[in-house]
């Protein structure tokens, strides 16, 4: 009983602090800038993000109501997104970018809950930091908090059924999920700005900007996700068991 109470305190504290401070400052990259998408496309991406968000809210409610011991892992997954998406890292192209950090939450809790966590980060970035934007919120949510996590989660499940080494599997899922976020962003920008040479050539151009910068960062994100997962496997066995995490957990 006692530790359930302290878990609640930990989570409340984590959530409050996360809400107040979780706005990646000084970040660059990925998010489509405020006012850069035509209104019609903003609405389309909003609509596309909505069903995922609805499922996510239901899932989070379920965790809050009947799986309270998982709250500490949920808070840590959210905090991981905040930290990882705030770290600006130099890359081989001579520009800086940051990672998404959504792979961990996607692998542990699935893409729907990750959507909610990612949206919180994006709203704060849009309002307080002028990064991303309220008009492009749907599009950014779709790329960072839906498409990337969904793909990471799918890759993880696939790797599990193929019986790939679990650490390698986590690495691949998190890294490729991060990359896919940037592919989707390129697609979104390209459909908004097809230019004279058409959408396909435009996609290639935007990918040319994002991809080389992002590949080393995707590798770093994969490695960090593996580290966190290893830590959780060592010390959070009961919670992982409740998540039906299959691995080296000793009974």
């Amino acid at each position, binding site marked *: 009983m006692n530790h359930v109470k302290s878990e609640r305190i930990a989570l409340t504290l984590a959530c409050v602090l996360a809400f107040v401070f979780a706005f990646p400052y000084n970040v660059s990259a990925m998010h489509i800038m405020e006012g850069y998408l035509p209104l019609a496309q903003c609405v389309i991406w909003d609509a596309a993000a909505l069903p995922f968000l609805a499922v996510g809210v239901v899932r989070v409610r379920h965790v809050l109501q009947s799986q309270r011991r998982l709250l500490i892992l949920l808070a840590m997954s959210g905090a991981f997104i905040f930290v990882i998406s705030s770290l600006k890292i130099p890359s081989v192209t001579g520009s800086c970018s940051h990672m998404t950090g959504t792979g961990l939450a996607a692998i542990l809790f699935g893409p729907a809950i990750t959507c909610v966590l990612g949206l919180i980060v994006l709203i704060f970035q849009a309002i307080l930091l002028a990064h991303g934007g309220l008009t492009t919120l749907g599009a950014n949510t779709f790329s960072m908090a839906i498409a990337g996590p969904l793909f990471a989660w799918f890759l993880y499940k696939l790797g599990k059924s193929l019986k790939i080494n679990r650490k390698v599997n986590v690495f691949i899922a998190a890294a490729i999920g991060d990359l896919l976020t940037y592919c989707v962003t390129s697609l979104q920008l390209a459909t908004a700005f097809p*230019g004279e040479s058409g959408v396909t050539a435009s996609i290639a151009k935007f990918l040319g*900007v994002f991809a080389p910068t992002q590949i080393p960062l995707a590798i770093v994100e994969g490695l960090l996700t593996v580290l966190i997962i290893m830590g959780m496997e060592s010390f959070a066995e009961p919670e992982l068991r409740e998540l039906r995490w299959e691995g080296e957990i000793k009974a």
Partner: protein
Amino acid sequence: MKKNTIIVAVLIAAVVVISLAPLFWLRGAEFTGSDDAGSQMVEEVTGSAYEPWFTPVMETILGGELPGEMESLFFCVQTGIGVGIIAYGFGYLIARKKYGADARAQTSETTRQKSPQSVRSV
């Protein structure tokens, strides 16, 4: 356990090397954000500077962009707090595992008979 320690050390080393290598490899590079590169690419593709049709809320309130030093401040505070939450979580979990095992061992001992040797080993 020993194997895991090695893996952790190698992974941390790899993260540090990959993150810092470009700094030394590409001396004199500016390392600006790829957001800027993105909006430059928009200009290049469309052939003209794009005029965003909506201004960020914070810039509207402040009447301009946030000063760079303030950005750094918030940036550091945010990273620190985020790390704090994760560290708190791991601190909690590690202590629970360590002292939880102790408590279980002690209760099982008191239900049996007291053996001073095993108490010391705990």
